């Protein structure tokens, strides 16, 4: 029983991470390198296959965010995961029907995606720091990061019924807004890039 819990929570929590790794990052060794050491963008630009592509920054920020997500999710969830092999369970205080393991697993998977997206938004924000859109992005990242973290407080609170549901919804909301930001900027960059080529 507890072993089922272990594997279930493992896959739930680390599903996005593992799938992204095997699909996208594992195929290019550069990305693996960047994932591990996140400050090597300049060096990698030299050796990348397509140095002047405007999407390089997006790819780098994606991979960097992925690396950061991997680190934080591993560090934050692994203790709980290992506990779940043991014989007992901890019920989530605000949702008494679900174990803490599971709720935390879901939260972890959401946070991994959130970290990736936050890193991408932050990259664009910091590279356009003079413009108001850059500053706005950075403020959004910091603010939503705090917001998501505080939302997980709802997981453990006992006074708010179904607090865990609220926290998951909040995190999904922040994730969707951030993804929309990223998609918007990618699209505008794509249009800028392809515009000289179009007749």
């Amino acid at each position: 029983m507890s072993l089922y819990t272990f594997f279930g929570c493992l896959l739930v929590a680390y599903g996005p991470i593992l799938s992204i790794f095997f699909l996208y990052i594992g195929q290019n060794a550069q990305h693996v390198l960047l994932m591990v050491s996140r400050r090597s963008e300049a060096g990698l630009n030299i050796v990348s296959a397509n140095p002047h592509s405007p999407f390089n920054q997006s790819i780098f920020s994606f991979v960097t965010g992925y690396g950061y997500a991997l680190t934080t999710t591993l560090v934050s969830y692994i203790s709980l995961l290992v506990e779940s092999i043991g014989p007992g369970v901890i019920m989530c205080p605000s949702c008494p029907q679900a174990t803490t393991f599971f709720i935390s697993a879901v939260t972890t998977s959401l946070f991994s995606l959130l970290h990736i997206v936050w890193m991408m938004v932050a990259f664009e924000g910091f590279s356009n720091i003079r413009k108001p859109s850059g500053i706005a992005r950075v403020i959004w990242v910091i603010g939503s990061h705090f917001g998501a973290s505080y939302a997980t407080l709802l997981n453990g609170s006992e006074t708010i019924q179904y607090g865990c549901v609220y926290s998951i919804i909040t995190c999904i909301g922040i994730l969707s807004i951030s993804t929309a930001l990223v998609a918007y900027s990618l699209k505008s960059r794509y249009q800028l890039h392809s515009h000289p080529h179009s007749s």
Partner: protein
Amino acid sequence: MVFALWNFAVVGLVSIFWKGPLWLQQGYLTVMSSLMAFSLTGLEEWTTWILLGLLAVWDLIAVLCPFGPLRLLIESSRKQQREVPALLYSVNAVWFMLAASDHVRLSKNIIPSSSMKRTSLEEEEKSSLSTTPPPTHIEQPREITNGRKRTVTLTSITDTIHSLASSSEYEASTSSTAPLQPNAAAPGTRQHRYHTQPSSSTLASTTGGEHNRNDLLSQQQQIDTNRFTRLRTESVSSTTVAAQSNTTEGDASSSQEQRRRRSNDTQRNNENDEEVRDEEDVERSGLKLGLGDFVFYSVLIARAALYDWITTVCCTIAVLTGLTTTIFLLAIYKKALPALPISIAFGILFYFVAKTVLVPYIGALCVFGMVGL
């Protein structure tokens, strides 16, 4: 139990020191290094940390200082053009075949239109398993496959000679002792072999002496004598290799993916064939990393694992980051660099930081279900 153990040992011997499938060799070296690292965890905690710290300092001194023993060895073997008697050809063969398979992948990555190159790489991979008669004036084990011998199968002998000449100068890897074939009439039939400095590595070997398999242990001692890392790269193409080399850093607690690629010098004066030169460049560009380094990385991570999962993860990432930093430094400086110090410094630092800061923090948070940070 005895039967299984015996078979394991014999197959290991055969696959490492004689012919065998590449994956088997890799697997055996991985398992041996893991066992070695595991047995070293029998040391006390502070002993391990101090040992790792001193090893890092020693590596730094031995490689970089002008009076360091390894540098002297490199210099003397280069000057006198004398072959250093070596005991570790088999490891070299492994490295070499690893290099071949990695190079196939490598060429696919960085050379888009390389069908011809790929096929020639495959043929070289096959030929790397062939053995050539050793030089008569040196007593060596029979089968030695090294990169130089592989070049005999290339298209032109002149290329062989010049690549031998140029690459042999920089043949300074711990685990790779590549005996050159005198039949190729290479001007410098050199052979580099680095005897480890007795104190640290024999300490490491003797503390692991609880192994019952003494024969494998002695092999492991031989392999562990390659503790010093050499990372060399000489050409710009090898920076691309360096950037792409870190493909498989999977399970770090038994993290002995031995990767070794030979880096080649681009001084080729009489190259006839441009394409062949590019192929050789691709094939030989790369970096070499000693097996002993991976053993010590594993010791560090095993010791971190004995405390908590979080420290394991942190130290894994620290060691990997140190490794990639070293690779980048290699691309910048283009000479032999010790691979141990940076990774071990990061690892030790992260271990203690994680132990004091992260573990209680996460422990306090997870109880509340606040997994997101």
